[in-house]
């Protein structure tokens, strides 16, 4: 039950983040969503993720606040705005309806199939020696994924350093 309440809180905070005029408030509301997510991870028995989400959330907020300068733009409601909003909402409603019927075929909440995962839980300690099964998965069984993950962060750092250069081109001496 507490999970549903937490989810409702997150949805509320997300709506606030989307609709509030002041950008700083909006960023802070997104922070609330992130912290709610961290709590949800804790309830869902994922302490690794809770820690990571918490610290990443802090960092994200610092970066976002760095970018926040002004207030939101005033809304312009011309004919096209109305049409576009309606079509977007229609698309989202269709998506949710389709999802509602499709999700019924998933295993019920709280009863995952765990075909492969059972193997990890039963043999993880003896095969890798790590007591934290998640660490055993990300760094041994699926270590190749983590190499990719580290590379993504590396790519982002390189990308930021490349984008932030003062001048992109060497100017001709004319």
């Amino acid at each position: 039950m507490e999970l549903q309440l937490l989810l409702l809180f997150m949805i509320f905070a997300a709506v606030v983040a989307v609709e509030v005029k002041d950008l700083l408030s909006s960023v802070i509301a997104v922070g609330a969503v992130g912290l709610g997510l961290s709590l949800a991870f804790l309830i869902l028995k994922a302490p690794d993720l809770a820690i990571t989400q918490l610290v990443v959330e802090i960092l994200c907020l610092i970066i976002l606040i760095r970018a926040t300068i002004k207030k939101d733009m005033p809304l312009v409601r011309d004919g096209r705005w109305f049409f576009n909003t309606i079509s977007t909402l229609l698309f989202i409603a269709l998506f949710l309806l389709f999802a509602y019927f499709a999700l019924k075929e998933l295993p019920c909440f709280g009863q995952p199939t765990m075909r492969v995962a059972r193997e990890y839980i039963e043999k993880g300690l003896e095969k890798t020696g790590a007591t934290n099964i998640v660490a055993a998965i990300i760094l041994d069984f699926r270590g190749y994924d983590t190499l990719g993950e580290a590379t993504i962060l590396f790519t982002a750092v390189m990308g930021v350093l490349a984008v932030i250069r003062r001048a992109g081109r060497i100017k001709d001496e004319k």
Partner: protein
Amino acid sequence: MKILPFFVIIPLGTAFLISLLGKKIKSLGDILANLGTLILLALSLYSIRLVDAHKILVYKVGGWIPPIGICMVLDGLSSFMLVTVNLVSFLVALYSISYMEKYTGKYKFYTLFMLMLAGMNGIIISGDLFNLFVFLEIASISSYALVAFGTEAEELEASFKYAVMGSVASGFILLGIALLYSYTSTLNMADISLVLSEKGSSLLVSFIAVLFLMGFGLKAALVPFHAWLADAHPSAPASISAMLSGVLIKVLGVYAIMRLFFNVIGISNTILSILMFLGAISMLAGVILALAQWDFKRLLAYHSISQIGYIVLGIGLGTPLGILGGLFHLFNHSIFKSLLFLNSGAVDYSLGTRDLREMGGLKERMPVTANTNLIASMSIAGIPPFNGFWSKLIIILACLQANRFGYALCAIVGSILTLASFMKVQKYAFFGKLNERWKDVKEVPLAMRLSMIILAMICIIGGILLLPIFRPFLQSAVDVLLLGKGYAGIVFGAIQ
């Protein structure tokens, strides 16, 4: 047997080394990037022989048996894509030696370039769904940064739009993967395929298919999701435009769609007709939008949408001939489209403008660029001896064979409009009277000329000679797709 990991290790290693030492040693980026791509090209050519001999190779990363660990799979389709990607990237790296002199921070360019290559190679050889997603993100993120590499206003704007659309697409793909994991409780693609065929068709699987189609369709710039491409591809440096249009949209979009829909989820008539429809629409819309363009690179970018339409139409036919035509066109398009973008880069390098109306008579001043551009234009328009003609012919014949006369007509109309649009390029840019302003324009440096000439050679050889030699190589790629869900059995057979 152990070459598979090196398709990822080599580009990653070179990228890290260039970023570590590139600032101190100026020429290190040029040397390492060219050497790395050359080795990768050699390895991928060698992989053709391996596939000939073994049919399929499975590499267990970390020594774990596949459903537990991640595996890499090399089969006919992967080998075909590897050759395409590494061939184009080697020539682009060669071209960049001179071309990127205009930009600052060249070593950052090479680092991002090698990371993008690592991402694409990783996607192609991955046999694990989530691993595919991770490498897809590496390739996408590096391409967002590379589009903005010039840091001018237009480039940043294009990059921002591209990054937002790309991230939404990734969100859809990841949601699809989550649903698929919950339904099958495994991430290995062969294993998923087995579980799905046991469970039979259901609404959930079609929901996942829609999510994947939206996500990968966005990455491939199929028509309802094409808006970002026309901004992003022209804004990048020319060598990156060549990579993006030439191989990136094909690996991230078309290859992933082929692999997932044919081999994992299983193809159905509904999906095939959706693919054909999207293909035909992209084909026509792209070329019609291209007709009105005066910016050289933007015109080429719209043609990319149109040509992706041909490829998807061919694959969507689902017949052996159609898939053969689609894959052959994929290869040809990556050759001549990268050549065209390199040409546009050469013109930009010498003249400093991309507007066709300001050019004229460049044939006298830049003979190599003009002649290679003529060859590429005839290729893309489908003039007989060149490679583009054969692949378009095969696609049209396949349409007729499958009794899809409407689509065949669309393909012919698209081809005629393409011809018209490239006549315009030739007329305004290279023929006609030389504009006074460009009197002392010089031909581009050697490295740029060399890579353009090699690409033009492949265009000619691909048309006349390669089809007989190429046939078994293409056929092994087609066989993988025709296998459909038999893929799982073969992968598990190879593990033992």
